[in-house]
C-alpha cells in the first residue's frame, strides 16, 4: 500500500507543470554557470568547472535554492486533499494514516529529487560544450556528481521536506509554509553572519542545517590542484551534523503524524449550548427589486476599484508570488549584503547607490517574472476556478474586467519593487554607517524598474 501511494503521488507530480518548469529553470541556471564564466553559482574560484570542488559546491548551493520547490511539493501533498475536497473519499478507504501520509510524502520527495537531479545533469552536459576553454576542464568523472548529490544535495532535500511537511500539516496553508521557509532562511543567514568568526567555526560547522560548513571545513587550505582532483572526505563532524539535523527531521515527521487525523473532532461538551437554525427569527421578507441597483458610469468605477483590490489581494496571497518574491529577495538580499565587500577585501559603506546597484543586478528580474506570470494567471484564473460564471453573469460592463486586472498588476509590480527597496533599507540599517536616501531609491531604482 505504501509503495502504491508513493508511486501514485510521484506519477501525479510528474504530470505537474511546476515540476518540469523548475527542472528546466535549475537545469538552465546550472548549465549557464558552467558554460559562461561570468555566471557563477557559489564560489568556484579558479578550480575546474567539472572538478569535484565545483560540483559539490554547486549542488550544495542549488539544493538550498531548491527548498522553494520542495516546499511547494510537500505542502501540495498535505493541502491538496483538503482544498479540493477529495479528502473525505480517500479518508473513508481502508488506507492507514501512516501509508497515506508518508506514502505521499515519499512521492513528493522523489519529485524534488528529480528536480535537483537537473543540476548534476546540467553540469555534466555543460562540461562537454565544445567552446569551453580546455584549461578550465578536468576529466569527466561520473562519481563526483553522484557523490556531490548524495552528500550535499539529498540531505538538504530530506531535511527541508520533512520540516515543511510538518509545518504544512500544522498550518494547513501554503502561505504559512512559505513564510516558515523564509523565516528559516533569514534566521539561518542572520545567525551564520553573527557567528562568522574563526572562534565559532567548529560550532557553526556542527550546527549549520545544510552541513556544507562541515563538508567544506577540510578544503579550506586546499590548493587548486587538490580541489580539482579530490573529493572532500566525510568527517566525524559532518556525520554529527547530519545526525543532529536528521533527528530534527524525524521529530518533525513524527509531529506531523500525530497532528494529522482522518476524522475531525467535535466541539467539547462544555461549550455553551446554541441551537443552530432555531435561534434566529427570519428577517422581514424583501420583495425582489427593492434593493437599489445602479448601472451608471459611477457605479462602474466603484466596480473597477472593488475588483482591482480583489485581484491584487489574490496575487499577493498566491503561492507563486510568495515563491518568486522569496527567491528574488534571497538573491537580491544576498547581493546587497555582500555588495559592501569589494573584491580586494576592503569593506565599503552601505550607501544607497551601492544597494541600488545590487538590487538592479540581483532583484530586477523578479518583479518582471512575477508580473508576466500573473498577467496570464489573472486572465485564466476565473475560468479555472469556475467563478467566472458567477462573475460574468453580473451586470458590470466588460471594460470593468480588464482595467482592474491592469491596475492590479501595476499595484503588484509597485508592491514588489517596494519590498525590494524595503529589503535594501533593512540591509543598510543592519550594517549601519551610511545615510539612507529613499529619494535615491525612488529615482534610481523604483521608477526605472516600474516603467520598464
Amino acid at each position, binding site marked *: *500500500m505504501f509503495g502504491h501511494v508513493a508511486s*501514485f503521488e510521484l506519477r501525479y507530480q510528474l504530470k505537474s507543470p511546476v515540476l518540469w518548469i523548475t527542472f528546466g529553470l535549475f537545469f538552465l541556471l546550472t548549465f549557464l554557470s558552467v558554460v559562461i564564466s561570468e555566471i557563477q553559482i557559489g564560489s568556484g574560484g579558479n578550480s575546474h568547472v567539472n572538478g569535484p570542488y565545483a560540483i559539490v559546491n554547486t549542488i550544495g548551493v542549488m539544493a538550498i535554492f531548491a527548498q522553494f520547490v520542495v516546499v511547494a511539493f510537500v505542502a501540495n501533498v498535505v493541502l491538496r486533499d483538503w482544498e479540493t475536497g477529495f479528502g473525505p473519499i480517500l*479518508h473513508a478507504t481502508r488506507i492507514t494514516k501512516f501509508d497515506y501520509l508518508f506514502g505521499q510524502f515519499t512521492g513528493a520527495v522523489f519529485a524534488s529529487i528529480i528536480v535537483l537531479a537537473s543540476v548534476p545533469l546540467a553540469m555534466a552536459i555543460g562540461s562537454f560544450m565544445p567552446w569551453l576553454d580546455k584549461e578550465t576542464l578536468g576529466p569527466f568523472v561520473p562519481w563526483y556528481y553522484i557523490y556531490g548529490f548524495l552528500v550535499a544535495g539529498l540531505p538538504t532535500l530530506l531535511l527541508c521536506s520533512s520540516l515543511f511537511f510538518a509545518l504544512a500539516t500544522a498550518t494547513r496553508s501554503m502561505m504559512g509554509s512559505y513564510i516558515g521557509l523564509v523565516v528559516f532562511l533569514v534566521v539561518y543567514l542572520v545567525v551564520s553572519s553573527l557567528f562568522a568568526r574563526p572562534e565559532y567555526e567548529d560550532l557553526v560547522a556542527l550546527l549549520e542545517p545544510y552541513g556544507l560548513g562541515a563538508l567544506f571545513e577540510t578544503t579550506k587550505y586546499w590548493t587548486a590542484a587538490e580541489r580539482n582532483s579530490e573529493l572532500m572526505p566525510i568527517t566525524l563532524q559532518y556525520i554529527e551534523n547530519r545526525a543532529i539535523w536528521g533527528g530534527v527531521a524525524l521529530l518533525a515527521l513524527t509531529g506531523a503524524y500525530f497532528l494529522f487525523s482522518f476524522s475531525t473532532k467535535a466541539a467539547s461538551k462544555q461549550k455553551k449550548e446554541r441551537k443552530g437554525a432555531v435561534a434566529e427569527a427570519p428577517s422581514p421578507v424583501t420583495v425582489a427589486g427593492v434593493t437599489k441597483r445602479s448601472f451608471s458610469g459611477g457605479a462602474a468605477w466603484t466596480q473597477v476599484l472593488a475588483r482591482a483590490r480583489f485581484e491584487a489581494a489574490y496575487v499577493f496571497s498566491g503561492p507563486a508570488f510568495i515563491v518568486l518574491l522569496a527567491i528574488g529577495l534571497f538573491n537580491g538580499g544576498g547581493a546587497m549584503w555582500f555588495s559592501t565587500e569589494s573584491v580586494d577585501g576592503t569593506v565599503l559603506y552601505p550607501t544607497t547607490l551601492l544597494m541600488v546597484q545590487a538590487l538592479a543586478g540581483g532583484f530586477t528580474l523578479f518583479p518582471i517574472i512575477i508580473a508576466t506570470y500573473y498577467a496570464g494567471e489573472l486572465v485564466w484564473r476565473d475560468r479555472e476556478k469556475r467563478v467566472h460564471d458567477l462573475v460574468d453573469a453580473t451586470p458590470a460592463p466588460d471594460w470593468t474586467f480588464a482595467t482592474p486586472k491592469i491596475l492590479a498588476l501595476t499595484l503588484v509590480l509597485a508592491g514588489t519593487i517596494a519590498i525590494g527597496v524595503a529589503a535594501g533599507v533593512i540591509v543598510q540599517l543592519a550594517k549601519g554607517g551610511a545615510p539612507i536616501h529613499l529619494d535615491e531609491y525612488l529615482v534610481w531604482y523604483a521608477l526605472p524598474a516600474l516603467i520598464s
Partner: protein
Amino acid sequence: MLQIQNLTHRYPNGVVALDDVSLEIGAGMFGLLGPNGAGKSTLMRVVATLQTPTSGKVRFGDIDVVANPELLRRTLGYLPQDFGVYPRVSAESMLDHLAVLKGIVNAKERREAVHGLLNQVNLWSVRKKALSGYSGGMRQRFGIAQALLGQPKLVIVDEPTAGLDPEERNRFLNLLAAIGDDVVVILSTHIVEDVAQLCSNMAILAGGKVVRQGAPEELRQSMQGQVWRASIAREDLEAVRQRYSVISERLLGGRTMVHVLSPAQPSGEFAPVEGGLEDVYFSTLAAARAA
C-alpha cells in the same frame, strides 16, 4: 445491522447539528429525508468515520465505529455531498488508485472491478479523460462508482442523484437496487420520490432530530383518510392557512392546490386524496416546526 444510539454532534462554532439521534438500520435501502441544514450530511460523515461525534454510539455488526474507525473503513463505500478532484488525473487511473486503497491489490481483479463500474455508471467512453474536465453529473457518477468499489457492506451516499439527468438517475437507482440484500445502504436526498421508489425504510430529520421513521408504505398508509385537497384562488390562501393545517401548497394553472390534514372533511370544496409520501414529509415537517 447499523445501530446509532444517542448520537449528538456539536460543531466547534456551537451549532448542534445532531441532537440525540437514535436509529436502527437493517440491510437494504434506508432513506434520509430532511430540509437543508437538518443534519443529514453530519450524520453520514459521523457514520463514515470522518467526524468523531460529541457523544453517542455507532455500531455496525460487531464493529464499534467510533472506537475502531479503521475496521469500518474496510467495508465502507462513501460518497460525499460534494467533492473536488485532482487536476490532470483520469477517471480510470483515479478509480484504480482508490481500488488499491480499498484493498483490491490483485491487478487483474482490480482492472475487472474498475472496468465493470465504469461501464455501470456509463463513463466507459470518457474513462481516459481528466476528471477535472467532467461535467457536474459525470463527476457525480465517478463519485458513485468509487463508492461502490470493493463490494462494501455499508454504503453511504449523500445526495447521490443531485445533478443527474433523468436517464442517469434511473440508471443509478437501478444500480443501487441491485447491490445486494445483505448490504446496508443509506442515502440522503431531497427527492421524496426516490425514497418512495427505492427504500424499505426511512427517517425524516429536522433540526438535528429524528422526527419520523418507519417504512415508507406504512407511513403513507397511516395518513389515509386524513389528507384533503382543494384548488383555491390566491387571495383565499391566507384564510385557508389560518383555518386548517396546511401540509403543502402548489401552483397549478394559476390557482393554488392545497393539501390539508384533517380527520374529517374540512368543508365542501375539499376532496379526499390518497396521501403520498410527500404529504407525510410535509406534514411531519409542519408538525416539527409547530412543536
